[in-house]
C-alpha cells in the first residue's frame, strides 16, 4: 500500500450527506475482475448525461479541478453496499484524502486498505474548506493530525493503529501472518460438534 505522511493538494467539495457507494460507483461497473480502471466511472450517474456526455454542472467535470486529490464531503459518506470498488474508483480518479463528517464502517475499512485517508472534521470546518478556490492547496499532515489551510489549521482524530499503517503503507496480510503460531493455537481450541 502507498504510504501517506504529509500531503499537499487541491480540493473538490461535494457536500451532500449520505452519499452511498451506489452513487460513488454504480453497480454496472462492478462486473470487472480487476482493481483498476474504475476512475472513469466515479460518480457516473451524476457525472454523465444520458448519452454519455459529461454534465458540465457537475463539479468533477470542472477542468480546473481535475488535479484535485482531496474530497470534501458530508456526513455518513460511503454508506450502503460494501463494494470496495468505491474506494478503488476514488483512488483511481486521483483522490488521496477524504474529509467527511463520518463514514460507514465498511467504507472506512476499505479506505484503510487502499491508502485512501478518511479524515473526520466537523461541519463548520468542512464548510470553510468547501469554499476553497480550485487552485488553492491545503496540507494534510498525518503525523501531526492536522488539516492546514493557510494560517488556519484543524485537528483530527485517528486511531494510532490506522495512522501507523498509513504512514508505513503496511500490507495487512504480512502483518497477520506473523501471528501464525497464535492462529494455529487458537484453531486447536475451537469446539467441534461433528
Amino acid at each position, binding site marked *: 500500500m502507498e504510504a501517506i505522511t504529509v500531503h499537499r493538494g487541491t480540493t473538490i467539495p461535494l457536500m*451532500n*450527506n*449520505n452519499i*452511498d457507494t*451506489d*452513487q460513488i460507483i*454504480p*453497480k*454496472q461497473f*462492478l*462486473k*470487472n*475482475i*480487476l*482493481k483498476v480502471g474504475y476512475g472513469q466511472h466515479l460518480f457516473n*450517474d451524476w457525472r454523465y448525461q444520458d448519452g454519455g456526455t459529461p454534465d458540465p454542472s457537475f463539479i468533477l467535470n470542472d477542468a480546473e479541478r481535475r488535479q484535485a486529490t482531496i474530497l470534501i464531503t458530508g*456526513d*455518513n459518506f460511503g*454508506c*450502503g*453496499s*460494501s*463494494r*470496495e*470498488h468505491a*474506494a478503488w474508483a476514488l483512488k483511481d480518479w486521483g483522490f488521496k484524502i477524504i474529509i467527511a463528517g*463520518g463514514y*460507514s*464502517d*465498511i467504507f472506512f*475499512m*476499505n479506505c484503510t*486498505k*487502499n491508502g485512501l485517508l478518511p479524515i473526520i472534521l466537523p461541519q463548520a470546518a468542512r464548510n470553510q474548506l468547501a469554499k476553497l478556490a480550485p487552485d488553492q492547496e491545503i496540507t494534510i499532515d498525518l503525523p501531526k493530525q492536522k488539516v492546514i489551510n493557510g494560517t488556519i489549521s484543524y485537528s483530527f482524530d485517528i*486511531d*494510532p*493503529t490506522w495512522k501507523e499503517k498509513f504512514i508505513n503503507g503496511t500490507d*495487512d*496480510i504480512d502483518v*497477520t*501472518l506473523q*501471528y501464525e503460531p*497464535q*492462529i494455529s493455537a*487458537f*484453531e486447536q481450541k*475451537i*469446539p467441534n*460438534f*461433528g
Partner: protein
Amino acid sequence: MGKTLFDKVWEKHVITGQAGEPQLIYVDLHLVHEVTSPQAFEGLRENQRQVRRPERTFATMDHNVPTKDIFNIKDQISKKQIETLEKNCQEFGIRLAKMGTADQGIVHVIGPQLGLTQPGQVIVCGDSHTATHGAFGSIAFGIGTSEVEHVLATQTIWQMKPKTMGIHLHGQLQPGVAAKDIIMALIAQHGVNFGVGYAVEFYGDTLQQLSMENRMTICNMAIEGGAKMGMMKPDQTTFDYLKDRKYTPRNFAAAVDYWKQFYTDDPSDYDQIIDFDVSQLAPYISWGTNPAMAIPITATLPKSSDKNFERAYHYMDLKPGIKATEIPIQWIFIGSCTNGRLEDIKEAAKVIKGHHISPHVTAWIVPGSRTVKNEAEKLGLDKIFKDAGCEWRDPGCSACLAMNPDKIPAGIHCASTTNRNFEGRQGKDARTHLASPAMVAAAAIYGHFVDIRQKEAI
C-alpha cells in the same frame, strides 16, 4: 457488570490485541460470491498464498446470475465473473453452489438454509447484508474485497470492538404488520445512521413471536440504520430451525448446549438502549431515496424539510401531502435476502391467491434460492402467482440491485420487498418503494398501496 451476547461471542474469537485497539478475530465461516471476490483471489495468486481454511469457506453465485434462461448469460462481463468464481473455487478447493443446483441462491439465504450459519460464530462475507446471519446469535458483518483476501489467506480479520446497542422490541404485532415494518419504522424514526459504530442487538418479548425468517429480515436491514451488525439471542426457535440441515453439527445436542451460553446477562450491559413498542405499529412504505424516508401507510408524505428531501421528491416525482395510498405502483418485485425466503413467498401468495394483478402492473417473483423455489413449487405457490399474472423466475439477487438484466425501467414506481431505495438501485431512474411481502403483493392487485390490515382491502 455482566456481558452482552455480542461480548460473549467476541471474546471467544479474539486471537490477539487489547480492547480499544484493533484486535485479531478468528472467522468461523466465510461466505463468498462472484462480485466482491475476483480481486481477492487474484491477490492470493500474485503473492503465492493459499486459502488457509477452505472448509470454512463457501461460495455461491447470486448478484449477477440471470433469473431466466440461466445457462445463457448474454452479458460477457457477467459471464466472465461467474466463470472466474468457478475457476477460483476449483483452484483453491472451495465448495461452490453452482448454477442450477439446489443449494445455489442468494448468499444470505443459503447460509442459514444449509445450516452453515450457527449461533456463536463469527461470519463474514463481502456483502453488507451479512448482518442477516446475526439472527442466529452470531457476529456477522460485511467486509470489503481486501478483507476478503485477508480472510482467505489468514481466516482472521482485524477489527475494533464496536460499542453495543440494545433495541428493546416489545408488544404484539397487529395482524398484517410484519417484521419488515418493525425495522422500517425503526429506521424511519431513528435515521439511517443511528447504528454507526454499534453492534446492535434486538431483544424483548416481540422476538419470541417471530420465526427465524422474520428475525433475519430485521437483522438484514440493521445495516440500513448504519449498524455494522444486528444480532439476536439464539433460542428454541433457532435450534429447531437448524436441526437436520445439511451442514449442522451431527452431535446436535452438544452443539445446542454450547449455543445456550450466548445471551445478554442484563440490558444494563448495553452501551445504549432504544425502546420500541411494536403494538401500535402500522405497515410502512418508503416514499423517498433512503430507507429512513418511510412512513406508515396511514400517513401522508412529509413536508420537504431540506435539500435532501427536495432531491428525493424530484427523483421520485412525488409531492409532499399526498397520501401513501395514492402513490401509483406499476411494478412489483418480491425477492432478495430481506424477503425472498419461503415464508415471505407464502405471505405474498396468501394475499395474491384468487386475485389477478392490476393490468397496469408487472410483477416479478424471484425466490431467494433454488431450494426456496422448489419448496414453493411443491406447495403450488408458483401456480398462484402465475394465475394472478405474475412472473415466476429463477433464484438470484435480480432487481434488488439490477446488476443482471432484471432492471426496473426508468420512471417506474416499483413496490419492492428489498432493502434499499437509493437512486438507481433497481435500474437507472427507477423509483423504489420498500414494503413487506404482503403489502407489495396487495399493491400489485390494486396498482397502489393499500392498508392490508383492513380485511376488505384484500
